[in-house]
């Protein structure tokens, strides 16, 4: 299986788009080497702006550039692209419905050794409540590319959440359609629907394999677009499965789990169980160690699924 950095693909996709469209402007805040926006900066120095360690200035300036017709991609780490600049994103970008695409890297626990201060686990929650904002959490580098292109093609503000680590490119993905979830392997019914986003999609697929060996049929659903959430798809999954598990590399509060539960509560009341970080900060460690420590692994998903099915029996 091929493994890629989503941020590498992001940098390359920016260059590709930038060659075709001269209105694309890319901004960064002293992390262009890490976010890979530097690749665009090298090819189009006149359309690349480094704001230094000043994210608030970058985000409000992004709004100013967008007001003049620019399509702006603004990047930094997820921690600094959301919490630190929330007011600028809300009032300067989203309220004006400007064409600003925030593509954040180094989201989640898998930042690893940098520890809790750099592990954005609340970013989706922060931005989800803001009108006009669309949120995508791609499951791999290829889907990240599709997400970036979709954001470019769709007017208005976006938040695209990428990780730091190299991840496997998943097979059998469906073509990316903004706002549409899908299942793997054409499966639409089963004992459990494991709904996931980001790097947890791969863990969900691995968990489904483990469960199959135990005679449990699991449908794996990828909901890459957290907002607008694919409500019809969620209701279908709930209708066709005994149990529902929602997996994300984020706090259980405010992310995919919340988005799914909001749909269920209003349209198809059902129990749903979360596999996520449970109201705690992260810590230093290798990405693998951290995912294990916080229970964001295939084994943990499989175990929770079995427990849930036993409880619901």
């Amino acid at each position, binding site marked *: 299986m091929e493994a890629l950095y989503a941020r590498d693909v992001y940098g390359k996709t920016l260059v590709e788009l930038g060659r075709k469209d001269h209105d694309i402007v890319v901004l960064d805040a002293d992390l262009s080497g890490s976010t890979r926006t530097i690749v665009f900066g090298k090819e189009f120095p006149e359309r690349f702006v480094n704001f230094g360690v000043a994210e608030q200035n970058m985000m409000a300036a992004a709004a100013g550039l967008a*007001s003049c017709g620019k399509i702006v991609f603004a990047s930094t780490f997820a921690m600094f692209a959301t919490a630190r600049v929330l007011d600028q994103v809300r009032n*300067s970008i989203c309220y004006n419905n400007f064409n600003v695409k925030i593509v954040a890297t180094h989201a989640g626990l898998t930042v690893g050794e940098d520890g809790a201060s750099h592990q954005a686990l609340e970013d989706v929650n922060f931005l989800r409540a803001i009108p006009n904002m669309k949120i995508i959490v791609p499951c791999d580098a290829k889907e990240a590319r599709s997400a970036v292109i979709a954001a470019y093609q769709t007017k208005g503000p976006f938040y695209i959440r990428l990780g730091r680590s190299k991840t496997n490119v998943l097979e059998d993905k469906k073509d990316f359609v903004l706002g549409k979830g899908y299942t793997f392997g054409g499966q639409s019914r089963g004992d459990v629907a494991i709904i996931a986003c980001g790097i947890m999609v791969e863990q969900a697929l691995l968990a489904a394999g483990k469960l199959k060996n135990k005679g449990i049929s699991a449908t794996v659903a990828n909901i890459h677009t957290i907002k607008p959430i694919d409500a019809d798809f969620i209701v279908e999954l709930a209708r066709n499965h005994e149990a529902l598990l929602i997996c994300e590399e984020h706090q259980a509060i405010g992310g995919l789990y919340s988005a799914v539960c909001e749909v269920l509560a209003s349209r198809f009341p059902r129990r749903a169980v979360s596999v996520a970080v449970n109201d705690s900060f992260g810590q230093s460690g290798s990405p693998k160690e951290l995912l294990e420590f916080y229970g964001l692994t295939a084994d943990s998903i499989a175990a929770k699924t079995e427990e849930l099915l036993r409880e619901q029996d």
Partner: protein
Amino acid sequence: MARPEEKIKLLKSKANQMRKLIVRMLAKAASGHPGGSLSSADIIAALYFSVMRHDPRDPCWGDRDRFHLSKGHCCPALYAALSLCGYFPEEKLLTLRALGSMLQGHPDRKVPGVEVASGSLGQGLSISVGMSLAAKMDKKDWRVYCLMGDGELQEGNIWEAAMSAAHFKLDNLCGIVDFNRFQIDGRTEAVMNLEPLVNKWEAFGWHVMECDGHNIEELLGAFDKAKFIKLKPTVIIAHTVKGKGVSFMEHVVDFHGRAPTEQERDIALAELADIEKDEEKL
């Protein structure tokens, strides 16, 4: 560099008309910010009726100069100028702050002539930096004017923007500080001292000018000079009087965020009418 007397007289008259509209719309809305709206009226009049290149019949004209009201709470002054320019009918002004009105309590892009919404302080200079960068990227000669309050200079975001405007050599950017020395909680020097303000901007790499923010001739002179400053942004520290033009509002902190009553409105309008008559006699 004396300007033709006629032009100065016209701009003074426009500023006075703006003040009357500000008082009327705020009294009707029964809420809003008269103090800073009145202190910034002459600055905005100079920009909209002389300095800026713009076309009310084509608010989205690509080559227009951009104005951004970073101190968004003083939008009554901007709305008055826009309506006097012909961006929208004057009757609309009396819908200020009413449900469904395009004239929101703080600027919104629904209003023809408003480039970017504002209201949360400290972000406007960054927005203007973005606009100035866009003009530079496109090799356009339009300019960007950003009107800031003095209180909002206490926001850290302003100084991030200031540092970057100098770094990017944005000589197409002109900031104006409406330095009326009051903020909601009292005098700026008591709440959070801004001085030495000129030195701060200079230290951040800006060309700094000071002027009487109620003297049209001085304002026009400063804006004119700013156009010739190259390779650095300019800021005009405009010394103003909070509540300027209405005797009982001048230097009164209470009128930062309290609208005049109907009775106060009538007294204010009578005073402003007298000022206009005096001006005409001169």
